[in-house]
Protein backbone atom coordinates (compact mmCIF):
# COMPACT_ATOMS: atom_id res chain seq x y z
CA UNK A 1 0.00 0.00 0.00
CA UNK A 2 1.35 3.39 -0.92
CA UNK A 3 1.96 6.04 1.69
CA UNK A 4 -0.80 8.23 0.34
CA UNK A 5 -3.26 5.38 0.40
CA UNK A 6 -2.21 4.56 3.92
CA UNK A 7 -2.74 8.16 4.87
CA UNK A 8 -6.17 8.15 3.33
CA UNK A 9 -5.05 10.33 0.46
CA UNK A 10 -5.96 9.69 -3.14
CA UNK A 11 -4.54 10.83 -6.43
CA UNK A 12 -6.13 14.15 -7.25
CA UNK A 13 -7.16 15.40 -10.62
CA UNK A 14 -8.19 18.84 -11.75
CA UNK A 15 -11.83 17.95 -11.28
CA UNK A 16 -11.14 17.72 -7.56
CA UNK A 17 -9.40 21.03 -7.34
CA UNK A 18 -11.20 23.42 -9.61
CA UNK A 19 -8.19 24.01 -11.81
CA UNK A 20 -9.47 25.20 -15.16
CA UNK A 21 -9.15 22.34 -17.64
CA UNK A 22 -9.38 24.52 -20.72
CA UNK A 23 -6.43 24.64 -23.10
CA UNK A 24 -4.67 21.72 -21.48
CA UNK A 25 -1.03 21.50 -22.35
CA UNK A 26 0.05 18.34 -20.62
CA UNK A 27 -2.25 15.42 -20.00
CA UNK A 28 -0.85 12.57 -17.97
CA UNK A 29 -2.85 9.38 -17.67
CA UNK A 30 -1.97 6.39 -15.52
CA UNK A 31 1.71 7.25 -15.34
CA UNK A 32 3.69 4.49 -13.67
CA UNK A 33 7.38 3.87 -13.17
CA UNK A 34 9.05 0.99 -11.43
CA UNK A 35 12.73 0.49 -10.65
CA UNK A 36 13.15 -3.21 -10.00
CA UNK A 37 10.49 -3.97 -7.43
CA UNK A 38 10.29 -0.40 -6.22
CA UNK A 39 7.36 1.46 -7.64
CA UNK A 40 8.17 5.15 -7.88
CA UNK A 41 5.08 6.50 -9.63
CA UNK A 42 1.69 5.01 -8.85
CA UNK A 43 -0.46 5.71 -11.87
CA UNK A 44 -0.54 9.49 -11.87
CA UNK A 45 -3.28 11.46 -13.58
CA UNK A 46 -2.60 15.10 -14.19
CA UNK A 47 -3.75 17.87 -16.46
CA UNK A 48 -1.72 21.06 -16.61
CA UNK A 49 -3.06 24.01 -18.60
CA UNK A 50 -0.93 25.86 -21.10
CA UNK A 51 0.70 29.17 -20.18
CA UNK A 52 1.08 28.29 -16.53
CA UNK A 53 3.92 27.91 -14.11
CA UNK A 54 3.47 24.86 -11.93
CA UNK A 55 5.54 24.22 -8.84
CA UNK A 56 5.99 20.53 -8.12
CA UNK A 57 6.87 20.13 -4.46
CA UNK A 58 7.49 17.16 -2.27
CA UNK A 59 10.06 15.61 -0.02
CA UNK A 60 13.08 13.67 -1.22
CA UNK A 61 12.07 10.44 -2.89
CA UNK A 62 8.50 11.54 -3.53
CA UNK A 63 8.88 10.94 -7.27
CA UNK A 64 9.32 14.49 -8.59
CA UNK A 65 12.47 13.83 -10.57
CA UNK A 66 11.11 10.60 -12.01
CA UNK A 67 7.93 12.39 -13.02
CA UNK A 68 10.02 15.09 -14.71
CA UNK A 69 12.14 12.49 -16.49
CA UNK A 70 8.96 10.85 -17.81
CA UNK A 71 7.57 14.18 -18.97
CA UNK A 72 10.85 15.03 -20.67
CA UNK A 73 10.77 11.71 -22.49
CA UNK A 74 14.04 10.45 -21.06
CA UNK A 75 12.64 7.91 -18.60
CA UNK A 76 10.71 4.90 -19.84
CA UNK A 77 7.35 4.58 -18.15
CA UNK A 78 3.88 3.12 -18.24
CA UNK A 79 0.81 5.20 -19.00
CA UNK A 80 0.65 8.12 -21.37
CA UNK A 81 1.87 11.69 -21.55
CA UNK A 82 0.54 14.04 -24.19
CA UNK A 83 1.47 17.58 -25.06
CA UNK A 84 -1.21 19.69 -26.73
CA UNK A 85 -3.12 16.61 -27.76
CA UNK A 86 -0.27 14.55 -29.21
CA UNK A 87 1.85 11.90 -27.56
CA UNK A 88 4.84 13.69 -26.12
CA UNK A 89 8.07 12.87 -27.91
CA UNK A 90 11.32 14.76 -27.49
CA UNK A 91 11.94 16.98 -30.48
CA UNK A 92 14.15 19.93 -31.23
CA UNK A 93 12.61 23.09 -29.87
CA UNK A 94 9.66 21.43 -28.11
CA UNK A 95 10.86 20.45 -24.67
CA UNK A 96 13.48 22.12 -22.50
CA UNK A 97 14.68 19.94 -19.65
CA UNK A 98 17.04 20.71 -16.83
CA UNK A 99 17.77 17.60 -14.77
CA UNK A 100 18.58 17.69 -11.10
CA UNK A 101 22.31 17.71 -10.34
CA UNK A 102 23.27 18.54 -13.91
CA UNK A 103 27.00 18.48 -14.62
CA UNK A 104 28.03 19.85 -17.98
CA UNK A 105 31.24 18.55 -19.56
CA UNK A 106 34.10 20.21 -17.70
CA UNK A 107 36.27 20.61 -20.79
CA UNK A 108 33.73 22.74 -22.65
CA UNK A 109 33.58 26.51 -22.42
CA UNK A 110 30.52 28.57 -21.58
CA UNK A 111 30.27 29.78 -25.17
CA UNK A 112 30.48 26.25 -26.53
CA UNK A 113 27.65 25.09 -24.26
CA UNK A 114 25.48 27.98 -25.35
CA UNK A 115 26.31 27.34 -29.02
CA UNK A 116 25.37 23.68 -28.65
CA UNK A 117 22.03 24.36 -27.00
CA UNK A 118 21.29 27.16 -29.42
CA UNK A 119 21.72 24.63 -32.24
CA UNK A 120 19.52 22.09 -30.44
CA UNK A 121 16.80 24.65 -29.76
CA UNK A 122 15.65 24.55 -33.37
CA UNK A 123 14.94 27.38 -35.71
CA UNK A 124 12.67 29.31 -33.35
CA UNK A 125 14.16 32.51 -31.93
CA UNK A 126 14.99 32.81 -28.27
CA UNK A 127 12.07 34.17 -26.26
CA UNK A 128 14.45 35.51 -23.71
CA UNK A 129 18.09 35.33 -22.88
CA UNK A 130 20.05 35.48 -19.67
CA UNK A 131 20.43 39.04 -18.37
CA UNK A 132 23.81 40.70 -18.21
CA UNK A 133 25.95 39.19 -15.54
CA UNK A 134 23.98 35.96 -15.35
CA UNK A 135 26.54 33.96 -17.30
CA UNK A 136 30.26 33.72 -16.52
CA UNK A 137 32.72 34.85 -19.19
CA UNK A 138 32.24 32.92 -22.43
CA UNK A 139 35.80 31.64 -22.66
CA UNK A 140 35.76 30.04 -19.22
CA UNK A 141 35.70 26.30 -19.01
CA UNK A 142 32.84 24.69 -17.14
CA UNK A 143 35.33 22.71 -15.07
CA UNK A 144 36.69 25.82 -13.37
CA UNK A 145 33.30 27.34 -12.50
CA UNK A 146 31.64 27.18 -9.10
CA UNK A 147 28.55 25.02 -8.69
CA UNK A 148 26.28 28.04 -8.89
CA UNK A 149 27.98 29.41 -12.01
CA UNK A 150 27.80 26.05 -13.76
CA UNK A 151 24.14 25.83 -12.80
CA UNK A 152 23.55 29.22 -14.40
CA UNK A 153 25.11 28.03 -17.65
CA UNK A 154 22.96 24.89 -17.65
CA UNK A 155 19.84 26.96 -17.00
CA UNK A 156 20.65 29.48 -19.70
CA UNK A 157 21.29 26.68 -22.19
CA UNK A 158 18.10 24.85 -21.26
CA UNK A 159 15.97 27.98 -21.67
CA UNK A 160 17.16 28.82 -25.18
CA UNK A 161 14.67 28.81 -28.04
CA UNK A 162 10.89 28.82 -27.73
CA UNK A 163 10.04 25.51 -26.10
CA UNK A 164 6.39 24.63 -25.49
CA UNK A 165 7.22 22.75 -22.33
CA UNK A 166 9.91 23.66 -19.80
CA UNK A 167 10.78 21.09 -17.16
CA UNK A 168 13.25 22.31 -14.57
CA UNK A 169 14.23 20.02 -11.72
CA UNK A 170 15.31 22.09 -8.74
CA UNK A 171 16.79 24.90 -10.84
CA UNK A 172 17.10 27.23 -7.86
CA UNK A 173 19.61 24.97 -6.10
CA UNK A 174 23.02 26.66 -5.80
CA UNK A 175 21.72 30.00 -7.08
CA UNK A 176 22.18 33.26 -5.21
CA UNK A 177 19.33 35.74 -4.78
CA UNK A 178 20.18 37.74 -7.90
CA UNK A 179 20.29 34.65 -10.07
CA UNK A 180 17.05 33.38 -8.57
CA UNK A 181 15.36 36.65 -9.48
CA UNK A 182 16.76 36.45 -13.01
CA UNK A 183 15.53 32.89 -13.40
CA UNK A 184 12.06 33.81 -12.22
CA UNK A 185 11.97 36.63 -14.75
CA UNK A 186 13.05 34.35 -17.59
CA UNK A 187 10.43 31.79 -16.64
CA UNK A 188 7.79 34.50 -16.54
CA UNK A 189 8.64 35.46 -20.13
CA UNK A 190 8.23 31.86 -21.29
CA UNK A 191 4.97 31.50 -19.43
CA UNK A 192 3.63 34.77 -20.85
CA UNK A 193 4.43 33.49 -24.33
CA UNK A 194 2.21 30.44 -23.77
CA UNK A 195 4.73 27.87 -22.61
CA UNK A 196 3.96 25.41 -19.86
CA UNK A 197 6.56 25.62 -17.12
CA UNK A 198 7.11 22.95 -14.49
CA UNK A 199 9.57 23.59 -11.67
CA UNK A 200 10.43 21.11 -8.95
CA UNK A 201 11.39 22.06 -5.44
CA UNK A 202 12.15 19.79 -2.50
CA UNK A 203 10.22 21.85 0.01
CA UNK A 204 7.76 24.69 0.06
CA UNK A 205 9.98 27.35 -1.53
CA UNK A 206 8.02 30.52 -1.04
CA UNK A 207 9.70 32.53 -3.75
CA UNK A 208 8.77 29.80 -6.19
CA UNK A 209 5.23 29.50 -4.85
CA UNK A 210 4.78 33.26 -5.06
CA UNK A 211 5.24 33.14 -8.81
CA UNK A 212 3.49 29.81 -9.44
CA UNK A 213 -0.01 29.46 -10.82
CA UNK A 214 -0.43 25.88 -9.74
CA UNK A 215 1.12 23.59 -7.21
CA UNK A 216 1.46 19.83 -7.45
CA UNK A 217 2.46 18.16 -4.22
CA UNK A 218 3.81 14.64 -4.40
CA UNK A 219 4.16 12.01 -1.75
CA UNK A 220 5.54 8.53 -2.32
CA UNK A 221 4.76 8.50 -6.01
CA UNK A 222 1.28 9.97 -5.76
CA UNK A 223 -0.08 13.43 -6.40
CA UNK A 224 -1.67 14.42 -3.11
CA UNK A 225 -2.42 18.03 -3.98
CA UNK A 226 -3.14 19.77 -7.24
CA UNK A 227 -4.50 23.26 -7.06
CA UNK A 228 -3.75 26.92 -7.10
CA UNK A 229 -0.71 28.24 -5.32
CA UNK A 230 -2.87 30.30 -2.98
CA UNK A 231 -4.90 27.24 -2.00
CA UNK A 232 -1.70 25.32 -1.39
CA UNK A 233 -0.18 28.07 0.73
CA UNK A 234 -3.38 28.38 2.74
CA UNK A 235 -2.97 24.75 3.71
CA UNK A 236 0.63 25.09 4.85
CA UNK A 237 1.32 24.82 8.55
CA UNK A 238 1.84 27.98 10.57
CA UNK A 239 2.99 28.32 14.13
CA UNK A 240 1.74 31.06 16.43
CA UNK A 241 3.97 31.56 19.46
CA UNK A 242 2.42 32.97 22.59
CA UNK A 243 4.54 34.34 25.44
CA UNK A 244 3.09 33.14 28.71
CA UNK A 245 2.75 35.41 31.67
CA UNK A 246 4.76 34.26 34.65
CA UNK A 247 2.75 31.62 36.44
CA UNK A 248 0.27 31.24 33.59
CA UNK A 249 -0.85 27.74 32.59
CA UNK A 250 -0.22 26.66 29.02
CA UNK A 251 -3.17 24.30 29.25
CA UNK A 252 -5.42 27.34 29.02
CA UNK A 253 -4.54 27.56 25.33
CA UNK A 254 -5.06 23.91 24.52
CA UNK A 255 -8.69 24.34 23.54
CA UNK A 256 -8.25 27.11 20.94
CA UNK A 257 -10.27 26.11 17.90
CA UNK A 258 -8.49 25.18 14.65
CA UNK A 259 -5.19 24.63 16.46
CA UNK A 260 -3.86 21.19 15.57
CA UNK A 261 -1.06 20.92 18.10
CA UNK A 262 0.09 22.76 21.21
CA UNK A 263 3.65 22.57 22.49
CA UNK A 264 5.46 24.33 25.31
CA UNK A 265 9.02 25.62 25.00
CA UNK A 266 10.15 27.51 28.07
CA UNK A 267 7.90 30.49 28.59
CA UNK A 268 6.53 30.14 25.07
CA UNK A 269 3.62 28.07 23.81
CA UNK A 270 3.41 27.16 20.14
CA UNK A 271 0.02 26.78 18.53
CA UNK A 272 0.23 24.98 15.22
CA UNK A 273 -2.50 25.53 12.67
CA UNK A 274 -2.99 25.98 8.93
CA UNK A 275 -2.15 29.27 7.24
CA UNK A 276 -5.78 29.82 6.25
CA UNK A 277 -6.87 29.43 9.90
CA UNK A 278 -4.24 31.72 11.38
CA UNK A 279 -6.44 34.83 11.32
CA UNK A 280 -9.22 33.02 13.17
CA UNK A 281 -6.81 31.69 15.79
CA UNK A 282 -5.34 35.17 16.28
CA UNK A 283 -8.83 36.58 16.70
CA UNK A 284 -9.61 33.96 19.33
CA UNK A 285 -6.40 34.80 21.19
CA UNK A 286 -7.29 38.49 21.10
CA UNK A 287 -10.73 37.70 22.51
CA UNK A 288 -8.97 35.89 25.37
CA UNK A 289 -7.08 39.05 26.18
CA UNK A 290 -3.67 38.12 24.80
CA UNK A 291 -1.97 41.28 23.62
CA UNK A 292 -0.29 41.34 20.19
CA UNK A 293 3.12 42.04 21.73
CA UNK A 294 3.02 38.58 23.27
CA UNK A 295 2.61 36.89 19.89
CA UNK A 296 5.01 35.80 17.15
CA UNK A 297 4.08 34.08 13.90
CA UNK A 298 6.36 31.67 12.10
CA UNK A 299 5.71 30.22 8.67
CA UNK A 300 6.83 26.83 7.44
CA UNK A 301 10.12 28.22 6.23
CA UNK A 302 11.14 29.33 9.69
CA UNK A 303 13.36 27.37 11.97
CA UNK A 304 10.87 27.90 14.77
CA UNK A 305 8.67 25.26 13.23
CA UNK A 306 11.11 22.69 14.48
CA UNK A 307 9.98 23.68 17.90
CA UNK A 308 13.26 24.85 19.29
CA UNK A 309 14.04 28.50 19.35
CA UNK A 310 10.99 30.64 19.83
CA UNK A 311 10.23 33.96 18.38
CA UNK A 312 12.35 35.43 15.72
CA UNK A 313 9.34 35.64 13.48
CA UNK A 314 7.21 38.57 12.48
CA UNK A 315 4.90 40.16 14.97
CA UNK A 316 1.18 39.72 14.64
CA UNK A 317 -0.70 42.73 13.47
Amino acid at each position, binding site marked *: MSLSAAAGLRTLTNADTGVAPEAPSIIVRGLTKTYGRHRVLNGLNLTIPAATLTAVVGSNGSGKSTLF*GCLAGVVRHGGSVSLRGSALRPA*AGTVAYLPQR*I*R*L*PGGATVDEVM*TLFRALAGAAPDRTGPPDGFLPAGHQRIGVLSGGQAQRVAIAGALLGSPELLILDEPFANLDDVARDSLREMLAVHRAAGATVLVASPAAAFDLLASADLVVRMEAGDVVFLGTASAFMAGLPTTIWVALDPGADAAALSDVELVERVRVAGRWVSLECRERDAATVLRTLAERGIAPDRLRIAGPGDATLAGSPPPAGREAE
Partner: protein
Amino acid sequence: MTALAVFRARSLLRGTSTIAAVLVFSVATGLVAFLGLGSFRQVGLGSVGPAAAALVNLALLLPTAQAVLVGAMTMTADRESGFGAMLRARGLGAPALVLTAWLAVSLSAWLSIAAGFGLAALIVAGNVPLDDLPVFLALAGVSFAASGAAAAVGVLVGALAPTRLHAAVGGIAVWFALAIGFDLVVVGLGAFLRLGEAAVLGAIVADPLTAARVSALLVLDPGAGVLGPTGAYLVERLGRDGAAAALMAVVVGWTALSLVVATLVARRRDG
Protein backbone atom coordinates in the same frame (compact mmCIF):
# COMPACT_ATOMS: atom_id res chain seq x y z
CA MET B 1 23.98 16.02 -34.48
CA THR B 2 26.81 17.95 -36.11
CA ALA B 3 26.72 20.53 -33.33
CA LEU B 4 27.01 17.81 -30.71
CA ALA B 5 29.83 16.09 -32.61
CA VAL B 6 31.78 19.34 -32.77
CA PHE B 7 31.04 20.05 -29.10
CA ARG B 8 32.16 16.63 -27.95
CA ALA B 9 35.29 16.64 -30.08
CA ARG B 10 36.37 20.07 -28.87
CA SER B 11 35.86 19.37 -25.20
CA LEU B 12 37.44 15.92 -25.38
CA LEU B 13 40.45 16.87 -27.48
CA ARG B 14 41.47 19.58 -25.06
CA GLY B 15 40.78 17.41 -22.03
CA THR B 16 43.59 16.23 -19.79
CA SER B 17 43.01 12.57 -20.69
CA THR B 18 43.69 13.25 -24.37
CA ILE B 19 46.67 15.50 -23.71
CA ALA B 20 48.19 12.95 -21.35
CA ALA B 21 47.61 10.11 -23.82
CA VAL B 22 49.14 12.10 -26.69
CA LEU B 23 52.21 12.89 -24.61
CA VAL B 24 52.68 9.33 -23.37
CA PHE B 25 52.27 7.78 -26.81
CA SER B 26 54.51 10.37 -28.46
CA VAL B 27 57.27 9.86 -25.92
CA ALA B 28 56.97 6.08 -26.23
CA THR B 29 57.06 6.03 -30.03
CA GLY B 30 59.80 8.61 -30.05
CA LEU B 31 61.90 6.42 -27.76
CA VAL B 32 61.21 3.31 -29.83
CA ALA B 33 62.14 5.13 -33.02
CA PHE B 34 65.29 6.59 -31.49
CA LEU B 35 66.44 3.36 -29.88
CA GLY B 36 65.54 1.38 -32.97
CA LEU B 37 67.39 3.57 -35.44
CA GLY B 38 69.95 0.82 -36.01
CA SER B 39 67.25 -1.69 -36.78
CA PHE B 40 65.48 0.72 -39.10
CA ARG B 41 68.78 1.41 -40.91
CA GLN B 42 69.37 -2.29 -41.44
CA VAL B 43 65.95 -3.58 -42.45
CA GLY B 44 63.88 -0.43 -42.96
CA LEU B 45 60.14 -0.81 -42.54
CA GLY B 46 59.78 -3.41 -45.25
CA SER B 47 60.23 -6.33 -42.89
CA VAL B 48 59.66 -7.25 -39.29
CA GLY B 49 62.57 -5.86 -37.35
CA PRO B 50 62.58 -5.32 -33.60
CA ALA B 51 61.90 -1.59 -33.90
CA ALA B 52 59.07 -2.01 -36.38
CA ALA B 53 57.49 -4.73 -34.24
CA ALA B 54 57.75 -2.51 -31.17
CA LEU B 55 56.16 0.36 -33.06
CA VAL B 56 53.27 -1.86 -34.14
CA ASN B 57 52.72 -3.17 -30.64
CA LEU B 58 52.81 0.31 -29.16
CA ALA B 59 50.34 1.61 -31.72
CA LEU B 60 47.97 -1.26 -31.06
CA LEU B 61 48.22 -1.10 -27.28
CA LEU B 62 48.33 2.50 -26.03
CA PRO B 63 45.82 4.30 -28.29
CA THR B 64 43.41 1.38 -28.07
CA ALA B 65 43.58 1.46 -24.27
CA GLN B 66 42.90 5.18 -24.41
CA ALA B 67 39.97 4.62 -26.78
CA VAL B 68 38.31 1.85 -24.75
CA LEU B 69 38.63 3.70 -21.45
CA VAL B 70 37.59 7.14 -22.65
CA GLY B 71 34.77 5.66 -24.71
CA ALA B 72 33.38 3.82 -21.70
CA MET B 73 33.68 6.85 -19.44
CA THR B 74 32.13 9.23 -21.96
CA MET B 75 28.92 7.24 -22.27
CA THR B 76 28.43 6.73 -18.53
CA ALA B 77 29.35 10.36 -17.82
CA ASP B 78 26.55 11.43 -20.14
CA ARG B 79 24.09 9.40 -18.15
CA GLU B 80 25.35 10.16 -14.65
CA SER B 81 25.72 13.88 -15.21
CA GLY B 82 22.27 14.45 -16.69
CA PHE B 83 23.87 15.93 -19.80
CA GLY B 84 22.63 13.05 -21.94
CA ALA B 85 19.09 13.50 -20.62
CA MET B 86 19.22 17.20 -21.48
CA LEU B 87 20.27 16.34 -25.01
CA ARG B 88 17.66 13.63 -25.44
CA ALA B 89 14.90 15.94 -24.28
CA ARG B 90 15.99 18.27 -27.09
CA GLY B 91 15.31 15.54 -29.61
CA LEU B 92 18.69 13.85 -29.98
CA GLY B 93 18.22 10.10 -30.06
CA ALA B 94 20.43 7.27 -28.89
CA PRO B 95 22.10 6.90 -32.32
CA ALA B 96 23.26 10.52 -32.22
CA LEU B 97 24.58 10.22 -28.67
CA VAL B 98 26.45 7.00 -29.46
CA LEU B 99 27.84 8.09 -32.81
CA THR B 100 29.04 11.47 -31.60
CA ALA B 101 30.66 9.90 -28.55
CA TRP B 102 32.43 7.33 -30.75
CA LEU B 103 33.60 9.96 -33.18
CA ALA B 104 35.01 12.22 -30.46
CA VAL B 105 36.75 9.34 -28.69
CA SER B 106 38.16 8.04 -31.96
CA LEU B 107 39.45 11.50 -32.81
CA SER B 108 41.24 11.74 -29.47
CA ALA B 109 42.89 8.34 -30.05
CA TRP B 110 43.74 9.27 -33.63
CA LEU B 111 45.37 12.44 -32.39
CA SER B 112 47.65 10.30 -30.23
CA ILE B 113 48.51 8.08 -33.20
CA ALA B 114 49.13 11.04 -35.48
CA ALA B 115 51.39 12.69 -32.92
CA GLY B 116 53.26 9.48 -32.13
CA PHE B 117 53.74 8.37 -35.71
CA GLY B 118 54.61 11.92 -36.71
CA LEU B 119 57.38 12.08 -34.14
CA ALA B 120 58.61 8.63 -35.15
CA ALA B 121 58.62 9.70 -38.80
CA LEU B 122 60.72 12.74 -37.98
CA ILE B 123 63.24 10.62 -36.10
CA VAL B 124 63.60 7.84 -38.67
CA ALA B 125 63.23 10.07 -41.74
CA GLY B 126 66.86 9.95 -42.79
CA ASN B 127 67.35 6.33 -41.89
CA VAL B 128 64.79 4.41 -43.93
CA PRO B 129 64.34 4.47 -47.69
CA LEU B 130 61.55 6.62 -49.07
CA ASP B 131 60.08 3.47 -50.58
CA ASP B 132 59.03 2.47 -47.10
CA LEU B 133 56.68 5.46 -46.76
CA PRO B 134 53.59 3.52 -47.93
CA VAL B 135 54.36 0.84 -45.35
CA PHE B 136 54.62 3.49 -42.66
CA LEU B 137 51.32 5.03 -43.73
CA ALA B 138 49.66 1.63 -43.90
CA LEU B 139 50.77 0.92 -40.33
CA ALA B 140 49.28 4.22 -39.26
CA GLY B 141 46.07 3.30 -41.10
CA VAL B 142 45.82 -0.03 -39.32
CA SER B 143 46.35 1.75 -36.01
CA PHE B 144 43.60 4.25 -36.84
CA ALA B 145 41.21 1.41 -37.66
CA ALA B 146 42.10 -0.53 -34.52
CA SER B 147 41.58 2.56 -32.35
CA GLY B 148 38.23 3.20 -34.01
CA ALA B 149 37.17 -0.34 -33.16
CA ALA B 150 38.45 0.05 -29.60
CA ALA B 151 36.51 3.29 -29.23
CA ALA B 152 33.34 1.55 -30.39
CA VAL B 153 33.90 -1.29 -27.92
CA GLY B 154 34.49 1.30 -25.20
CA VAL B 155 31.28 3.10 -26.06
CA LEU B 156 29.45 -0.22 -25.83
CA VAL B 157 30.99 -0.89 -22.41
CA GLY B 158 29.87 2.58 -21.32
CA ALA B 159 26.34 1.98 -22.59
CA LEU B 160 26.14 -1.23 -20.60
CA ALA B 161 27.85 -0.05 -17.40
CA PRO B 162 25.61 1.39 -14.67
CA THR B 163 28.24 3.77 -13.25
CA ARG B 164 31.54 5.33 -14.22
CA LEU B 165 33.35 3.02 -11.82
CA HIS B 166 31.85 -0.01 -13.55
CA ALA B 167 32.71 1.54 -16.89
CA ALA B 168 36.35 2.09 -15.91
CA VAL B 169 36.78 -1.41 -14.52
CA GLY B 170 34.88 -2.95 -17.42
CA GLY B 171 36.87 -0.93 -19.94
CA ILE B 172 40.20 -2.04 -18.50
CA ALA B 173 39.06 -5.67 -18.39
CA VAL B 174 37.78 -5.65 -21.96
CA TRP B 175 40.89 -3.93 -23.28
CA PHE B 176 43.13 -6.42 -21.48
CA ALA B 177 41.11 -9.31 -22.88
CA LEU B 178 41.21 -8.00 -26.44
CA ALA B 179 44.77 -6.69 -26.48
CA ILE B 180 46.59 -9.33 -24.50
CA GLY B 181 44.38 -11.97 -22.90
CA PHE B 182 42.82 -13.32 -26.06
CA ASP B 183 46.22 -13.86 -27.71
CA LEU B 184 47.48 -15.71 -24.68
CA VAL B 185 44.44 -17.95 -24.58
CA VAL B 186 44.61 -18.74 -28.30
CA VAL B 187 48.34 -19.44 -28.20
CA GLY B 188 48.02 -21.56 -25.07
CA LEU B 189 44.96 -23.49 -26.19
CA GLY B 190 46.25 -23.76 -29.74
CA ALA B 191 49.32 -25.58 -28.58
CA PHE B 192 47.48 -27.64 -26.01
CA LEU B 193 44.54 -28.65 -28.17
CA ARG B 194 46.58 -28.78 -31.38
CA LEU B 195 44.18 -26.43 -33.09
CA GLY B 196 44.51 -26.27 -36.86
CA GLU B 197 45.25 -23.11 -38.83
CA ALA B 198 41.59 -22.61 -39.61
CA ALA B 199 40.67 -22.66 -35.94
CA VAL B 200 43.40 -20.17 -35.10
CA LEU B 201 42.22 -17.93 -37.92
CA GLY B 202 38.70 -18.18 -36.58
CA ALA B 203 39.98 -17.06 -33.24
CA ILE B 204 41.69 -14.08 -34.85
CA VAL B 205 38.41 -13.02 -36.37
CA ALA B 206 36.87 -12.98 -32.91
CA ASP B 207 39.22 -10.22 -31.71
CA PRO B 208 39.53 -6.91 -33.55
CA LEU B 209 42.88 -6.01 -32.02
CA THR B 210 44.40 -9.36 -32.91
CA ALA B 211 43.02 -8.97 -36.42
CA ALA B 212 44.62 -5.52 -36.59
CA ARG B 213 47.93 -6.89 -35.31
CA VAL B 214 47.97 -9.64 -37.94
CA SER B 215 47.04 -7.04 -40.52
CA ALA B 216 49.97 -4.86 -39.46
CA LEU B 217 52.33 -7.82 -39.64
CA LEU B 218 51.09 -8.54 -43.13
CA VAL B 219 51.98 -4.96 -44.05
CA LEU B 220 55.50 -5.46 -42.76
CA ASP B 221 55.87 -8.97 -44.10
CA PRO B 222 53.72 -9.61 -47.17
CA GLY B 223 54.71 -13.27 -47.21
CA ALA B 224 53.37 -13.65 -43.69
CA GLY B 225 56.32 -15.84 -42.80
CA VAL B 226 56.47 -14.22 -39.37
CA LEU B 227 53.01 -15.60 -38.64
CA GLY B 228 54.11 -19.18 -39.21
CA PRO B 229 51.74 -21.82 -40.58
CA THR B 230 48.69 -19.73 -39.78
CA GLY B 231 50.02 -16.83 -41.86
CA ALA B 232 50.94 -19.12 -44.71
CA TYR B 233 47.46 -20.65 -44.61
CA LEU B 234 45.87 -17.18 -44.57
CA VAL B 235 47.86 -15.92 -47.58
CA GLU B 236 47.40 -19.16 -49.47
CA ARG B 237 43.63 -19.11 -49.02
CA LEU B 238 42.92 -15.42 -49.53
CA GLY B 239 45.99 -13.94 -51.14
CA ARG B 240 47.83 -11.02 -49.56
CA ASP B 241 45.34 -8.35 -50.52
CA GLY B 242 42.36 -10.55 -49.76
CA ALA B 243 43.78 -11.38 -46.35
CA ALA B 244 44.36 -7.71 -45.61
CA ALA B 245 40.83 -6.85 -46.74
CA ALA B 246 39.33 -9.68 -44.68
CA LEU B 247 41.21 -8.60 -41.56
CA MET B 248 40.17 -4.98 -42.01
CA ALA B 249 36.60 -6.15 -42.52
CA VAL B 250 36.82 -7.84 -39.13
CA VAL B 251 37.96 -4.59 -37.53
CA VAL B 252 35.30 -2.52 -39.28
CA GLY B 253 32.67 -5.16 -38.49
CA TRP B 254 33.53 -5.02 -34.81
CA THR B 255 33.24 -1.24 -34.94
CA ALA B 256 29.84 -1.28 -36.61
CA LEU B 257 28.44 -4.10 -34.49
CA SER B 258 29.58 -2.48 -31.25
CA LEU B 259 27.97 0.82 -32.23
CA VAL B 260 24.70 -0.84 -33.22
CA VAL B 261 24.50 -2.77 -29.95
CA ALA B 262 25.47 0.33 -27.95
CA THR B 263 22.67 2.26 -29.66
CA LEU B 264 20.12 -0.44 -28.87
CA VAL B 265 21.25 -0.54 -25.25
CA ALA B 266 21.25 3.26 -24.91
CA ARG B 267 17.78 3.46 -26.40
CA ARG B 268 16.42 1.16 -23.71
CA ARG B 269 18.08 2.94 -20.81
CA ASP B 270 16.66 5.77 -18.76
CA GLY B 271 18.40 9.12 -18.58
